[in-house]
C-alpha cells in the first residue's frame, strides 16, 4: 500500500541544517496498521508529512497504492491526496463550522454536489457514533468527539489509506481507548490501511500490526510486532513492558523473560519448578493481549545456588522464551 525508499528531509533553521528524516525505507502492506514510534524530535512527524507530501522530501520516493506521489505536482498531487485520509493530534477542525459541515468540507473540496454531501455526511457521522452531535460546533465538543469528527472527515473520500499524526496524544486514557477501538473496528470494516505515528505504547499495544522505532531520523528497528517482541535484543519489548529498576534479592539472580505468541500460553513457572526443582519469584511483569499477539515480560528471581539453574535457562530458551539477565 505504501512504499517509501531512501527518504531524506533536511530543514534549515537559522542557517543550520537539521536532518529530520535521514534515509528511511518503509513498506506498509494492504490492511496493515503500521506504527512509527519514537520520542519527539525523532523525525516521525516529518516522515508522516512526507507521505502525502505536506513536506516534499529532498530525496527518495513515496509510492501509495501504486502511484508515485513524489513524481506528482499541483492538481495531480491534490487529487492523489484526496484518496488519503489524515487525522491530527489537535483535530484541526474548522471552528466556524459545525461537526457536519466539517465533514462536508472534505467533500466540498472534491466537488461533491450538495445533496450527495448531506447523505454522505450523515453516514459518516453515524459511522463514528456522532450522529446526534451533527449540529454542534467544535468548541461544544469534547476532545474525543472532536477526534471522531476528524476521523469522519478523513474517511469522507472513502480512502484506503489513513495517516494518523499522534491522533490520541491530546486525549485522556479512557478516550484514547475508545478512539483506538473505533480505529481498530474501522480497519476491519473498511479494509483500511493505517500508517500512524505515536509516542504512546498504548497505541502500539491496541492497534499496531507492525512497528518501527525511530531515533534521530532513522529506523533503529522495524517489523511485525509479534516478531520484534520475541527477539531478545528488541527495544520494543522493553518499551511496551517496562520492568523498572532492578531490585536486589539476596541469594538470587534476576532474569527477564519475554513471552510472545504461542509461548505466552505455556505454564513456564510451574515447568521450572517441576522439571528443575526451582523456586521462582516473580519480581515484576506484565502479560497482555495486544492487537498483534499475546505477549509480556516477567522479571523472575531464581536461587543463585540451585544446581539446575543453567539447565533451566537453556530449557526456557529452547522452548522459545527470551531470557536475559535483568539489567
Amino acid at each position, binding site marked *: 500500500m505504501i512504499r517509501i525508499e531512501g527518504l531524506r528531509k533536511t530543514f534549515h533553521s537559522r542557517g543550520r541544517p537539521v536532518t529530520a528524516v535521514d534515509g528511511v525505507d518503509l513498506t506498509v502492506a494492504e490492511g496493515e496498521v503500521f506504527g512509527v514510534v519514537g520520542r519527539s524530535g525523532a523525525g516521525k512527524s516529518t516522515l508522516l508529512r512526507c507521505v502525502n507530501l505536506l513536506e516534499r522530501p529532498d530525496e527518495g520516493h513515496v509510492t501509495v497504492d501504486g502511484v508515485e506521489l513524489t513524481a506528482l505536482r499541483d492538481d495531480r498531487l491534490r487529487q492523489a491526496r484526496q484518496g488519503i485520509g489524515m487525522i491530527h493530534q489537535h483535530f484541526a477542525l474548522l471552528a*466556524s463550522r459545525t461537526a457536519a459541515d466539517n465533514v462536508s468540507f472534505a467533500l466540498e473540496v472534491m466537488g461533491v454536489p450538495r445533496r450527495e454531501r448531506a447523505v454522505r455526511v450523515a453516514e459518516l457521522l453515524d459511522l463514528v457514533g456522532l450522529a446526534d452531535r451533527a449540529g454542534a460546533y467544535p468548541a461544544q465538543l469534547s476532545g474525543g468527539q472532536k477526534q471522531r469528527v476528524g476521523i469522519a472527515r478523513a474517511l469522507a473520500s472513502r480512502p484506503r489509506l489513513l495517516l494518523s499524526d499522534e491522533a490520541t496524544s491530546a486525549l485522556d486514557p479512557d478516550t484514547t481507548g475508545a478512539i483506538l477501538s473505533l480505529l481498530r473496528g474501522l480497519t476491519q470494516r473498511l479494509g483500511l490501511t493505517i500508517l500512524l505515528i505515536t509516542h504512546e505504547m498504548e497505541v502500539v499495544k491496541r492497534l499496531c500490526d507492525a512497528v518501527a522505532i525511530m531515533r534521530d531520523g532513522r529506523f533503529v528497528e522495524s517489523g511485525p510486532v509479534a516478531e520484534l517482541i520475541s527477539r531478545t535484543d528488541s527495544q520494543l519489548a522493553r518499551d511496551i513492558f517496562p520492568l523498572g529498576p532492578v531490585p536486589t534479592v539476596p541469594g538470587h539472580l534476576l532474569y527477564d523473560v519475554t513471552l510472545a505468541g504461542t509461548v505466552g500460553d505455556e505454564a513456564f513457572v510451574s515447568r521450572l519448578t517441576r522439571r528443575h526443582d526451582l523456586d521462582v519469584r516473580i519480581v515484576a511483569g506484565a502479560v497482555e493481549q495486544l492487537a498483534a499477539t499475546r505477549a509480556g515480560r516477567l522479571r523472575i528471581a531464581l536461587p543463585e545456588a540451585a544446581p539446575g539453574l543453567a539447565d533451566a535457562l537453556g530449557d526456557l530458551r529452547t522452548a522459545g522464551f527470551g531470557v536475559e539477565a535483568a539489567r
Partner: protein
Amino acid sequence: MIAPDLVDLLWQGFVETAYMVGVATLLSGAGGLLVGVLLILTDRGGLLAAPRLNGLLGLIVNIGRSLPFIILLVAISPFTRAVVGTTIGTTAAIVPLTVSAIPFYARIVEAAIREVGRDVVDAARAMGASRRQIIVKVLLREARPGLVAGLTITVVALIGYSAMAGVIGGGGLGDLALRYGYQRFEDDVMVGTVVLLIVVVQAVQMLGDRVARRLSHR
C-alpha cells in the same frame, strides 16, 4: 431646546461624515483585505511564498502606517487630484482616508488570519484542497470574527481621521466641531457634535461586536 438650524448643521455634518467614512470603509475594507491576504500568502512558508515581495509589501504598508494622517492628506494631493480630479471637498477627502486605512486594516487582516491555526491549513492541504479553497474556505472564513472586529476598529479610526478632512474642505462632524465650536465658540454646536460622534462610534462598535460574536463559535 435644540435650535432647528443646529439640527440642520448636525444632520449635514453627519451625512458628510457618513459619506466619507462609508465609501472609505468599503474601499479600504476591500483593499486592506487584499493586501492583508497577500502579506500572509507571500510570507516565508506561506501558500505563495515570495519573501522579497513580502518584504516590499511590508515596507509599503509600514510607510503608510507611519505617516500621520494630516501629513498624508496633504502629501498625496497630486494622487488625489489624479483620482477624483480635485483636491478639495468631501469626495476628495475619501482618497486620503482610503489610502491611510488600507495599510491599517491590512495589518489587522494579517493578524486575524495568522490566528487561524497552521494545522487547519495543513488539514485542508492533506484533503487535497486547492490554494483558492484554502484562502476562501479556510483562512478568510475562519478569520471572519477577527476580520469584522478589525473592520469595526478601522471604521472608528476613519471617523476620527475624517475630522481632519475639514482641512481640505471635506466637511463632516469633526470639521463642524472645529469651525463652529472651536473657532467661533459656539458651544452648542461643539456639544452637539461631540454627543453625536459618541453615539455614532458607540453604534458602530455595538454593531461590529454583535456581528463578530455571531460569527464566532470558539
